[in-house]
């Protein structure tokens, strides 16, 4: 890990932060860093401490102890201008029009936006016709898109999205996903928090999983999946397979059957048996659990779930 003072490749560096409310410790000894240009997932169940962690990153609340470095420096007065933050609890002034909202929110970030820029942004998400409508006239999904535009209107280097897909219909979810990938292409660092694991698998390079205020997983998505790999294979086949040697259990999944192997059996042994029996195999895959399964495994069995 690199030092903080110098210009580094690190967008956010969180070091051993703690936060306690009353007797309840909400965040305990959380550390992670987010590289520049990376899409980073902050995941965990509801109430795990995700939002509290983000608020400490945003300097909205102060950690009881520990440090946060954003874009290579400690939080300063103008640091907020370089971050775009879409909170989980979000709303806009209902009486303002869409363009007034964008202008005022940008001015709070210290920049003046031109009408052309506003038109351009609204056009991009197909909302130009609603430019002069009031926020209260918007549907929920449209409001969320406006909020996303508010988040990125000042062209921030770091974008933090807390549960960005909550309450969005599938069409808008896809639209927002596209917008996030666009930001990534522009080289922005993106942190997004969610409890929907499939979104993480689609978008994130690395992730930090938090449960009950503490770290449960941290690292590259692929590494984590590898670490939690079961000795199993996913097979989609035609015909009757019979019983396979070395298989302790088989489970029917949506699109495949998962075969769990005993410790003396490798996936190659199974493949060999299938070829020998001339079974038509449409899919053969080394069993990597979905993030969701890993999550359930860890969060479901408290305390001793960690290996």
């Amino acid at each position: 890990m690199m030092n903080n003072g110098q210009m580094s490749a690190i967008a956010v560096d969180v070091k051993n932060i703690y936060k306690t409310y009353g007797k309840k410790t909400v965040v305990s000894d959380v550390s992670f860093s987010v590289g520049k240009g990376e899409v980073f997932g902050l995941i965990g169940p509801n109430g795990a401490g995700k939002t509290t962690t983000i608020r400490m990153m945003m300097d909205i609340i102060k950690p009881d102890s520990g440090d946060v470095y954003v874009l290579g420096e400690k939080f300063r007065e103008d640091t907020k201008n370089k971050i775009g933050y879409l909170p989980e609890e979000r709303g806009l002034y209902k009486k303002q029009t869409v363009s007034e909202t964008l202008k005022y929110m940008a001015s709070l970030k210290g920049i003046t936006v031109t009408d052309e820029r506003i038109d351009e942004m609204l056009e991009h998400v197909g909302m130009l016709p609603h430019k002069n409508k009031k926020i209260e006239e918007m549907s929920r999904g449209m409001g969320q898109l406006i909020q996303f535009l508010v988040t990125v209107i000042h062209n921030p280097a770091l974008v933090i999205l807390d549960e960005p897909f909550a309450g969005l219909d599938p069409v808008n979810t896809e639209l927002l996903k596209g917008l996030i990938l666009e930001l990534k292409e522009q080289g922005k660092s993106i942190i997004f928090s969610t409890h929907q694991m499939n979104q993480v698998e689609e978008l994130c390079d690395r992730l930090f999983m938090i449960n009950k205020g503490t770290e449960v997983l941290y690292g590259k998505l692929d590494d984590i999946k590898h670490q939690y790999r079961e000795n199993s294979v996913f097979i989609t086949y035609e015909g009757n397979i019979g019983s396979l040697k070395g298989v302790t259990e088989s489970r029917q999944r949506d699109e495949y059957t998962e075969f769990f192997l005993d410790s003396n059996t490798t996936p190659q042994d199974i493949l060999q048996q299938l070829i020998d029996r001339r079974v038509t195999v449409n899919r053969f895959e080394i069993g990597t659990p979905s993030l969701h399964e890993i999550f359930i495994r860890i969060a479901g069995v408290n305390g001793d779930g960690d290996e």
Partner: protein
Amino acid sequence: MNKIKTIFKYELFTTIKRKSFILMTLAFPLLGFLIIGGFSLIQGTDGETPIEEIKVGYVDEPGGFDNHLTYGNVTLIPQEGQQAAFDNMTEGIISQYFVIPENYMTTGNVTRYTLTRELDVSSQVYYAIERFLVNNILEGKVDSSIVDRVASPLYLSSITLTPEGGESGQQGGFTSFIVPYIFSILLIMAIFTSSGFLLQGLGEEKENRVMEILLSSVSSTQLITGKVLGLGVAGLIQVVVWLISAKFIAEMASTSIGGLLSGLTIATDFLIIGVIYFILGYLLFAIIMAGAGSIGATARESQQFSTVFTLLAVVPFFFIAHIMEFPDSGLSQFFTIFPLTAPLTVIMRMGITDIPTWQLITSMALMILTIIGSIFLAGKIFRTFLLMYGKTPKLGEIIRMLRQA
């Protein structure tokens, strides 16, 4: 700094564009001009109507009450006896009558009869009867100038002096109290309009969930400072509009209505003290309201929460009779110095008495200290509660959290 300015401008302009703000600001001057206009209109048409003549009958049982029968528009008419007097009254020849009984000289009892219900005997009639009796009793016994003095022994005029012996600029009395009285009401209205907008705004931002978006761009201190200043300037605009129109209204009332209001003027030092106490009072209550606003989960809950402080501020109104009668009592002095009641009490007392300078200075100093203390406490409250949604915390939780913050 620039962000405070951005919020300041936003809050100021959204407030002065609010319909309720414009209505409140213009309602007071308009009402004043309407009343004066209406009054002079009525006077203009009514002034020419002839004064009604009042005919009062009397039954003179002891005899000798025969002369001096006219007093202004009241004419006294002797009656033959009680039955005749009653008949004349029912026929409308006289409107009322009174009986001087045989033993009048020893008892002074006089009974008056009338057909209409009334609150009290009219002062004109009372004066006429009184002078009629005095004049007739003393007829021929003493000089007429002595009769006048016995009937009206004094016309009292009081003059308040300064310690140097000159005539004081503030002469007290009804007119000097009416101005502070109206002003204390306006001052409280102005303070609570502006700080109420602040409370409502914060509550709405929490309710709409705009709060966290705002806090991702500005710090809570910048947000509150910008809001307090923006709404304060809006309130100041309101107060200045009221003060300027009040000066005009007072002058117009003094010349056109006259009578009780003929001495109505508004002294400059009164205006200055008024503005100072508006600013101090507003700052104090705005910060308290902001604190309350950040604790409540919704705008309505915040409003209920702040009612406690609003009530404290208007406590002097409950004691208005006491303050009017004993403006220098211990209680009046306490209300002057206690920060929450100071703005209202100072304005009320100023009309009736000269508040000692030390009390004014102590009162202002204490208010400033309280404001500074409240800012410190409010800072903690904002950090702790601005982003708490769902339910309003209980008092015990609030105290515990503040201790930790």
